[in-house]
């Protein structure tokens, strides 16, 4: 039975991969490629966020820090050193991500609970403050423009496939993690942390491990985005970015591995349609989040699964 679930997941990934792979060939416009890239990057961001929250039960309101870290590592290298340093910038970002997430994790995980959440927000805002004020180095509120990956990656379609490949591999790695013994342990940490020491495991170490892993892939997503939009801005570090990835996850369904990806796609498409017509986007997502939290806490995928189970057990009884 559990193998069946994993085959379904693999099938889903393959369909997804094919769908996204074919997109540029179907004469889609540059704008639509950018939209698809956004869905891929935010999808990775949301799935790695969900490893932290949906799987392990750690609600972080400060993932924008790591997302912005990835983007700014690339952007700053390109701006101050040169376009050829795009990919090295990515590696530096990832290395910094591991170091910073270890330090912050050690500080913040031991207090746990609500405190963990609000402290991650505080650190996120600290990162935003520093980036925002350090005008000479980061460009502050102006952001940095003209970030183009070097060599063949400067071609938009090639960069798209580059993004697609990295995102798919990352999602695949995270999927394997969620189905591995470590993944099960993380779920146990969420469901019954009191029992986990009586399994011979440390709750804190498990939480620290997934925090570092999740932040790593978040930074990866951010660095990819720098090349998608060809620009970066301090808004990427702002608390609203952290909030948006949470919204995507909750909308799609935090109890499901692919839920957040669906949520990301939904929000990006909705934003494309609605966002252009209103400056009250925050009000819209605020109300949307209230509706989900109050009425549909399992999210789109979660409610769909629940419905499916109800229908199949109904059919089983009737037949």
């Amino acid at each position, binding site marked *: *039975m*559990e*193998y069946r679930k*994993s085959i379904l997941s693999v099938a889903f990934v393959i369909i997804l991969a094919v769908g996204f792979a074919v997109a540029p060939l179907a004469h889609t416009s540059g704008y639509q490629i950018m939209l698809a890239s956004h869905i891929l990057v935010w999808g990775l961001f949301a799935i790695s966020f969900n490893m932290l929250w949906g799987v392990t039960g750690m609600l972080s309101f400060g993932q924008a820090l790591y997302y912005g870290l990835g983007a700014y590592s690339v952007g700053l290298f390109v701006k101050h050193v040169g376009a050829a340093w795009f990919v090295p910038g990515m590696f530096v970002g990832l290395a910094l991500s591991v170091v910073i997430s270890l330090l912050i994790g050690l500080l913040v995980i031991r207090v746990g609970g609500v405190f963990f959440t609000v402290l991650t927000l505080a650190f996120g805002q600290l990162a935003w403050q520093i980036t925002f004020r350090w005008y000479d180095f980061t460009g502050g509120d102006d952001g940095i423009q003209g970030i183009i990956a070097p060599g063949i990656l400067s071609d938009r379609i090639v960069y798209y496939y580059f993004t697609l490949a990295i995102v798919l591999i990352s999602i695949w*790695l995270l999927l*394997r*993690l969620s*189905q*591995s*013994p*470590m*993944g*099960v*342990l993380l*779920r*146990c940490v969420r*469901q*019954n942390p*009191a*029992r*986990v*020491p*009586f*399994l*011979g*495991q*440390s709750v804190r170490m498990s939480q620290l491990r997934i925090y570092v892993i999740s932040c790593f892939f978040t930074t990866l997503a951010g660095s990819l985005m720098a090349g998608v939009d060809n620009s970066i801005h301090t808004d990427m570090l702002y608390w609203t970015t952290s909030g948006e990835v949470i919204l995507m996850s909750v909308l799609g369904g935090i109890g499901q591995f692919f839920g957040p990806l669906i949520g990301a796609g939904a929000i990006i498409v909705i934003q494309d349609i609605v966002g252009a017509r209103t400056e009250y986007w925050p009000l819209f997502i605020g109300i949307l989040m209230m509706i989900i939290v109050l009425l549909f806490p399992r999210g789109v995928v979660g409610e769909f699964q629940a419905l499916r189970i109800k229908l199949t057990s109904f059919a089983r009884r009737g037949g």
Partner: protein
Amino acid sequence: MEPLLKLDHVNKAFGGLTVTADVSFSVMPGDITAIIGPNGAGKTTLFNQITGHLIPDSGRIIFQGEDITGMPPQTIVTRGMGRAFQITSIFPEETVLENVRVACLSHRKEILHPFRHVGSFKRATDRAYEILESLGLANRADRPAFELAHGDQKLLDIGIALGLEPKLLLLDEPTSGMSPEERQLTRDLIKKLWKEFKLTLVFIEHDMDTVFGIAQLVRVLTLGRLLAEGTPDEIRNNPEVITAYLGEEVS
């Protein structure tokens, strides 16, 4: 023969209230012993100190010749001590199989594997099935644990502890909340597990049928103090014990 577990003048107080008063006893390998006492006697608190959840104020706890006083639960558990809980402590959203398997994986030091599918760990999976068979839960291995009836959840709780291949198993009120029929089944099961898994058992109980039905040795705790220890018959006829239980039914 060396005792498996030895408590040496263990003391603990919360604020001004003494909860464990100079408790000393030894448990030999293969024993089945019970700890009984009126409510508030400090039985669960004593268990918590043995398993590392609480640190005694003074005294030592020695397990398999090693001083484990003050060690954290996750270390003690890997040394061969298991515990089942009074208020069932399982992983409700995981399957029945997974609940036990995660303990087996942890024992086999395979739990931190981040890449292979959990179902591909054959030995751990097989061992988990064996344990479920012994408990009579194997036919529901794929159901989520929250679906189990209360009594079965208690059994699963024990199953998780068994997954760590303990030498000493501490059971905190294993028959609480059960009907008389379920109690009998659990009694038989505990006896069976004791033989099959070569366990040493210490359990806390309020149900005297269970205590006198299974235990070879009974210890009575009252107000944190070890009042008496002896065979079930000795304890049943001990006047001090009867006084301590005034108002509660004995045998």
